[in-house]
């Protein structure tokens, strides 16, 4: 890694020249003197509103660069910084590519701004975007959904990546986020890293009904229990359970009908064709935050069947399928926890216009509206 400070002013052409100079630096040439290749698949704009976020963003981008080489623009807003123009620093990261002898490089531009200078950031970012590449905005922490900075940065973007696990005001922010797709003039996809975190769970739940013989029982679900763990001093990550509920309700075309807060969680109810479904979200103490188990009960003509998933040791889960009148099937399966770089990679890879998450979020908002009596 090579870093160079730039002078006090932001000159986009100068940043590009400095990046080029770094790419031509002797340490970035291949052993046979070949110039490194610049490689990008995306413009990634990350917003850091706290010092801790900035360090985390840089560490995550380092890990991301192998799989998703990008031009990363890290826009940092530091309220403690004295007023003045934003500053920029540039870095390139190069690595050898397999056995080819080539080196490939990715670029990082860190923009540092005071709170007052933040309004200049979107126009600087706009000048630094590589042409003809998609633009993704990643906002760690709780996105400032009322701050014009967010919307100005989103203007050239097609996707906003957030992480509901970091929302301090979870219910309020989820509800606000769910309205974003209907905001006039804003044509963006929403991706939540918590949603990406749930992919293994969703994958395994979906698998219960891949067997065409099981499709009937999908219409016979009557109860879903979700166990969440809260580690000592930590949070339970209720957002995971709420998103699983929202997902099932939206995909299966159910209608939210009730939401009750309980001392140890929630009870939620939905209407499906021919019956009702009850969700029980139970929070208890445990070592690992987030969903610990999901049990889905159906009742057909032959009796009750239970499909369950339980997190076990790291990256392993247990599937149990107890169909009415048949022996129970038990199997261990991979149930991995993805790190932030992997989550970010999968968020970038999500297909454009893929609205499954947004549909789920809308149902979560519908449940939350029931709870507040709106």
């Amino acid at each position: 890694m090579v870093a160079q400070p730039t002078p006090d002013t932001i000159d986009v052409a100068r940043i590009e020249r400095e990046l080029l100079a770094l790419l031509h630096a002797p340490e970035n040439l291949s052993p046979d003197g070949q110039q490194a290749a610049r490689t990008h698949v995306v413009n990634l704009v990350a917003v850091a509103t706290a010092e801790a976020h900035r360090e985390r963003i840089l560490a995550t981008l380092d890990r991301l660069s192998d799989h998703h080489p990008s031009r990363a623009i890290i826009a940092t807003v530091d309220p403690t910084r004295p007023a003045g123009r934003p500053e920029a620093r540039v870095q390139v990261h190069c690595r050898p590519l397999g056995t080819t002898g080539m080196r490939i490089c990715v670029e990082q531009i860190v923009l540092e701004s005071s709170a007052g200078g933040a309004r200049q950031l979107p126009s600087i970012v706009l000048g630094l975007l590589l042409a003809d590449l998609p633009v993704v905005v990643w906002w760690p922490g709780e996105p400032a959904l009322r701050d014009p900075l967010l919307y100005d940065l989103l203007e050239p973007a097609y996707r906003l990546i957030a992480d509901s696990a970091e929302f301090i005001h979870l219910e309020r922010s989820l509800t606000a986020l769910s309205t974003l797709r209907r905001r006039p003039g804003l044509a963006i996809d929403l991706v939540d890293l918590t949603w990406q975190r749930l992919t293994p769970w969703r994958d395994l739940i979906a698998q219960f009904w891949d067997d065409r013989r099981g499709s009937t029982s999908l219409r016979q679900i009557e109860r879903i229990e979700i166990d969440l763990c809260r580690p000592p001093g930590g949070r339970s990550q209720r957002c995971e359970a709420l998103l699983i509920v929202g997902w099932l309700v939206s995909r299966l075309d159910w209608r939210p009908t009730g939401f009750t807060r309980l001392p140890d969680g929630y009870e939620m109810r939905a209407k499906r064709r021919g019956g009702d479904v009850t969700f029980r979200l139970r929070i208890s103490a445990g070592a690992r935050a987030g969903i610990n188990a999901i049990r889905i009960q159906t009742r057909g003509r032959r009796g009750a069947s239970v499909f369950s998933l339980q997190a076990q040791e790291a990256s392993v889960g247990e599937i149990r399928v107890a169909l009415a009148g048949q022996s129970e099937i038990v199997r261990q399966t991979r149930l991995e926890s993805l790190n932030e770089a992997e989550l970010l990679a999968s968020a970038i890879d999500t297909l454009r216009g893929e609205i499954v998450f947004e549909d789920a979020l809308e149902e979560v908002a519908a449940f939350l509206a029931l709870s507040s009596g709106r």
Partner: protein
Amino acid sequence: MAVAQANPLRAGLRVERTPEPCVVVIFGATGDLTRRKLVPALYSLAHERQLPPNFALVGVARRDWSDDEFRREMRAGVERFGRNMHPAIWESFERHTYYCQSSFDDPDGYARLKERLASIDRERGTGGNRVFYLATGPENFLEITRNLSEGGLINRADTGPWTRVVIEKPFGHDLVSAQRLNRSLLSHMLRERQVFRIDHYLGKETVQNILALRFANVIFEPVWNGTYVEHVQITVAESVGVEGRAGYYEGAGAIRDMVQNHMMQLLALVAMEPPTHFDADAVRDEKIKVLRSVEFPGRSVGEWTARGQYGPGTIAGASVPAYRQETGVAPDSGTETYVSLKLLLNNWRWAGTPFYLRHGKRLPKRITEVAIAFKKVPHMLFRDGAASNLEQNVLALRIQPDEGISIRFGAKVPGANVRLRSVNMDFLYGVAFGADPADAYERLLLDAMLGDQTLFIRRDEVEQAWSIVSHVMDGWGKLLPISSPNYASGTWGPEESDDLIRRDGRAWRRL
């Protein structure tokens, strides 16, 4: 093909569906293919959550092993040749892995297998669905299938539990034997939709990507024809020798081992018309049209083919022996280890455009590539030698290793004068996608369980490919044998092969 009802919970997930409950039964379970490829691929599918909860694996072979011995051997195979070994997931996988000792001709063995499968169905809910994978020599295909059929282990009906049979190449050793094999398999025992003829080349991501490149981009297809393409070269070069397969290779040679299957498939994918859908029959209908359009460019095969056998030499600094010095090879063997051909396609798109194919063992490096060489511009603006360094445009699809695409085009050399030079623009999959592609067997085994035959070879494709190759072999039979060896290991093949393409005013690509 089984039609699965859409699962609404699959929307937006990477895996579109997992197979229905089933048992995979591998014949030849103690062999190398099972240990190196098949079980590691099945385990990897389990690890990737692509197998249903109700899945079981049964190995069948002559060796007197117990379930536990089979599990131990397979675990060692996965640890050595597989990826993602996770003890807890392996233990869960192996709990549903069984072994059934039987010779392939023993009806009692098939009765025991039937009983075992019925008991697995009861315990594991596998529903009577079966994939029989014949990882055996081709001489066993018919016998095993006949015994399975007579033992009541194959359901040919469209209803009820399904049965699929996967067979490995070679599918026969010439046209007549391939036709006989197909006729026998399909007469009373199986239907074509139940036969999965595997060519692992088709399971490679980069081979499938030929279709993506051609049919998902508008910029290539308009020039993908004889109006713009001057010629095409398909190269499958190996640096290894026969690697302990002399017994098989002596009877097969390069043309049966590589050209009849992998290279004919590459030719078909590169030259085919766009299919109407990306499904098994639509894709294979277009591939067979290409194979049917193959035209031989001269009466004598000597005019448009070359063959060779490697002598001793040096590869990557190491001395290697001649083919005839390899263990199991006859000291006077005439088997070819190198072959090159020029073929024409007698159709609207490719009329007059030669396709040059070459494959050899003990070449300087391992590389598989398809190169589309374009015609020169109709009128060169730049005169007085300005363009004398300019080579023709080439689009090269590298299948392995360092999978990628490169385009060669002309650019102006900076300076006051107008001088042009060829430059290359490279795209490497490893850079853009990073992730390791799945092994070809993972994809193909999964497709067999899903009942998707798109990446498997249909009866008519096999027979048409044999008809081309048999014509070459018959022609060679009428010529004098080659004087072997005629190329040194570590070189790009015999002089005759260079002559073959040089006669057309062209040269093999330097790779």
